[in-house]
């Protein structure tokens, strides 16, 4: 595949290196404030651990639109708490990291502000207990993510990735909104907790299918599930702290969160299992295979994130208690090691000058802290005992066996994925640091504490949580699993279960993982070949879909809005004909039989009009056309006289002649009518339909009796009350004077407009006409 500049991210694109003026002192201090705030929030959330562990639930509700039952509502339970802890805890470290990472960069303020805003949105998302509240924060993460991915907006790939992330997650968000509203209306409440409380009632309802589809679309796009997984590697255009935070630890887990949250209501069905398992497993496999294809460490991690998300989704689909435990545990495991590894890669990028795996080697001595952090995180990732990753893998295998429907499928997928994680862990933690002479684009050294503190703490926590496995299980994992399942969980997490099937699987995993690591280069080459041979990636598919949408839009719009007035007019009159004939066809009522009993003078006048109308259409002489128009207008005014409408007749007469005079003046300048291109049959058909429709409706009107109350009132009050004997005039200037006021306003404005058009036209012409007199 050739790289073009249309917006695909170059493999080793640099980021955040723009030099700028250093931050002033106060500004610099302010950069660290979000980190402190997040840390305080983390501590505050920690205090809830015991209560939540006991199964308590906290709520916070403000009224918002009471008329529609919409509230600004929050709920803190096990699931919410663990996410809140991840958001604030990892957030604190990443804000700190970002402050260091962007120190001296004028854009530091912007990115930290955006990160902080994102953290708020993410926190709101996981704590929301109201449909609108949830969606508010859900879209909040979409928008902040858009702005963060497009942070390096000068780069075409960053703009493309930002728009891609916006569109894909935006689509999911809209689907989710649809699902939320549907479910809310079904449940009669917009409170998530109340929807969930309905439990299986939802899956038995008729709306279950659409609701499920919409929720899954929302969750899958947000959590980069196949076939929407492509946006996540693209989003790596964002600076490393952003990738670490949004695109590994938190935002991409929003979809997973949603599935976990809705599991009691939407889960437990065949379709739920199959969809989640198949999509989760596919995502997992795709992510792991393409992770090996990458040479950019960040891209590699991004693909393993896709894999991790697939794993989570697959286990949420599992439906058993063990599966829920597995999902809950892996959620924590993944967040910790993946954030640590991302931050570590950021350190490498900043201090060694590249993220290309082949350009980095033997830096363990130069960057000891970084190397240690990498090692700790990688151990957890690979599932080494006693890291929490080990726990995760064990539970995962146990969960696979527990799955009722297709344990072999699930276990097999998990096996391949875990082996791949081992391989990637080895690539990331071993390759750059050990067993080789130092090699890097620039002299490597450990970064400042703000940069290494995050990876070290996160990776260390992976060890700690593994060591205190029972506590981790009771305080963190079980409440989450309880939320997923919608019922209390009684499971005891232990580091050592003795030798069982899961342990054997773990050992086999290491073997396969090691094999993958050793054969990484040939695999990579093979994948590259497959890619080159025209295998279409989802990312390309996205482009094609987008192009397809644009092409469809252009085709449809080009056909309709084609810039040709006649086609607009044709459509407009055709619509009018359809409206008229539709109304005639779909209605009844009196249809009088016409009678024709008028004096000759009436018929003569009408005949004049008809002859003149034909003349206007047929004649090629413009003067004859104008003269015929004059004849029609005059005839109409004679008809007005015949029926006693003398005022109207006078007005009509003078207006008509003025029109004729105006036309005659304008025709002095306007060009001759070009030869008619024959008779336009289609137009004539439309015109005839319109005309005939008007006639039919008009005759129908004549079949109804006319209530003359208004006219009688005017006739009786005109002379005695309004002091005028010409009833028509009194209506015009007294009874309905407001009409006349508007009407004369029309004349004034028409005159202003016409003068403006013509004067400006004359000025415009003066610029080009050479024969113009000077001073004109």
């Amino acid at each position, binding site marked *: 595949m050739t790289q073009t500049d249309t917006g695909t991210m170059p493999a080793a694109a640099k980021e955040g290196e723009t030099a700028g003026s250093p931050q002033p002192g106060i500004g610099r201090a302010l950069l660290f404030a979000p980190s402190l705030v997040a840390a305080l929030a983390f501590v505050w959330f920690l205090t809830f651990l015991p209560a939540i562990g006991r199964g308590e639930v906290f709520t916070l509700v403000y009224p918002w639109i009471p008329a529609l039952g919409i509230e600004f509502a929050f709920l803190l339970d096990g699931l919410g708490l663990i996410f809140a802890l991840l958001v604030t805890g990892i957030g604190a470290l990443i804000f700190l990291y970002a402050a260091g990472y962007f120190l001296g960069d004028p854009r530091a303020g912007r990115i930290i502000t955006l990160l902080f805003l994102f953290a708020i949105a993410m926190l709101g998302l996981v704590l929301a207990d109201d449909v609108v509240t949830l969606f508010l924060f859900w879209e909040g993460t979409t928008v902040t993510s858009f702005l963060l991915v497009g942070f390096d907006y000068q780069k075409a790939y960053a703009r493309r990735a930002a728009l891609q992330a916006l569109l894909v997650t935006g689509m999911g968000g809209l689907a989710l909104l649809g699902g939320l509203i549907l479910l809310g209306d079904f449940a009669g409440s917009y409170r998530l907790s109340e929807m969930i409380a309905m439990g299986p009632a939802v899956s038995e309802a008729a709306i279950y299918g659409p609701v499920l589809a919409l929720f899954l679309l929302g969750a899958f796009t947000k959590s980069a599930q196949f076939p929407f997984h492509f946006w996540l590697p693209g989003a790596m255009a964002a600076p490393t702290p952003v990738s670490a935070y949004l695109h590994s630890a938190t935002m991409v887990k929003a979809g997973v969160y949603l599935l976990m949250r809705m599991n009691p209501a939407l889960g437990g069905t065949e379709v739920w299992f199959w969809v989640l398992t198949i999509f989760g497993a596919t995502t997992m496999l795709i992510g792991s295979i393409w992770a090996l294809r990458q040479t950019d460490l960040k891209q590699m991690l991004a693909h393993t994130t896709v894999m991790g998300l697939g794993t989570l989704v697959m286990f949420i689909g599992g439906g058993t208690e063990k599966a829920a435990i597995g999902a809950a545990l892996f959620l924590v495991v993944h967040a910790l090691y993946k954030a640590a590894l991302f931050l570590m890669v950021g350190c490498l990028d900043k201090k060694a000058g590249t993220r290309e795996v082949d350009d980095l080697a033997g830096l363990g001595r130069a960057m000891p802290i970084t190397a240690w952090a990498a090692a700790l995180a990688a151990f957890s990732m690979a599932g080494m005992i006693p890291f929490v990753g080990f726990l995760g893998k064990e539970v995962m295998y146990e969960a696979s066996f527990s799955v009722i429907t297709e344990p072999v499928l699930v276990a097999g997928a998990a096996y391949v994925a875990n082996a791949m994680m081992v391989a990637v862990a080895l690539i990331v933690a071993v390759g750059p640091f050990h067993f080789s002479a130092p090699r890097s684009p620039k002299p490597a050294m450990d970064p400042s504490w703000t940069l290494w503190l995050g990876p070290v703490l996160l990776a260390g926590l992976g060890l700690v949580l593994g060591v205190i496995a029972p506590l981790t299980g009771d305080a963190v994992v079980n409440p989450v699993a309880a939320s997923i399942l919608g019922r209390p969980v009684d499971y005891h997490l232990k580091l050592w279960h003795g030798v069982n099937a899961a342990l054997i699987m773990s050992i086999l995993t290491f073997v396969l993982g090691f094999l993958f690591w050793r054969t990484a280069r040939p695999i990579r080459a093979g994948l590259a070949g497959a890619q080159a041979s025209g295998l279409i990636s989802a990312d390309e598919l996205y482009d094609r879909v987008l192009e397809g949408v644009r092409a469809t839009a252009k085709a449809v719009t080009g056909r309709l809005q084609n*810039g040709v*007035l*006649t086609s607009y*007019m044709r459509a407009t*009159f055709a619509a009018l004909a359809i409206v008229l004939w539709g109304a005639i066809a779909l209605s009844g009522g009196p249809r009088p039989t*016409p009678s*024709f009993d*008028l004096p000759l003078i009436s*018929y003569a006048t009408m005949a004049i009009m008809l002859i003149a*109308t*034909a003349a*206007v*259409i047929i004649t090629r002489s*413009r003067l004859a*056309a*104008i003269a015929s*128009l004059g004849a*029609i207008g005059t005839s109409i005014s004679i008809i007005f006289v015949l*029926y*006693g*409408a003398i*005022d109207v007749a006078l*007005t009509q007469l003078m207006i008509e002649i003025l029109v004729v005079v*105006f*036309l005659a003046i*304008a025709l002095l*300048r306007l060009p001759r009518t*070009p030869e008619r291109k024959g008779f336009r049959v289609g*137009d004539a058909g*439309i*015109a*005839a339909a*319109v*005309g*005939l429709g*008007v*006639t039919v409706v*008009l*005759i129908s*009107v004549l079949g109804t009796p006319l209530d003359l109350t*208004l*006219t009688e009132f005017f*006739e*009786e009050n*005109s*002379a005695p009350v309004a002091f005028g*004997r*010409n*009833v*028509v005039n009194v*209506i015009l200037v007294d009874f309905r004077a407001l*009409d006349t006021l508007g*009407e*004369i306003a029309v*004349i004034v404005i*028409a*005159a202003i407009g016409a003068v403006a058009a*013509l004067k*400006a*036209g004359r000025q415009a012409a003066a610029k080009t006409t050479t024969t113009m007199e000077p001073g004109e």
Partner: protein
Amino acid sequence: MEPSLAIVVGILVGGGAYLMMSANLIRFLFGLTLVSNAVNLAIFTAGRMTYGAPSLVPPGGKTVAEGAANALPQALILTAIVIGFGLLAFTLSLVLRAYVTFGTANSAEIREAEPMPEGRRDDSGKG
């Protein structure tokens, strides 16, 4: 009731509509004039005008004579005629202006705001 007028109205509307669908803006103007007239006549017909006397109260009288024409539709038509004239006069000015600007009164050749998709594009044209 005057069904014959209803038929005349239909023919005027049809003829006018046909002309309004023409690419030639002058013919469009002719069509507009026709349809405006037709609509006035339609109101007139719908207003159940009867062959009769003008709606004038005789001097010293209290109300109009028996069989006087219905005054209300007359007032409406009068208003409509004048408004229609304003619109027509403006449209005429616009067509003239379009001709001065584009050198043509053929709407198919007036393609500035919505240019041909693949055609030339005038850079300076945006106002």
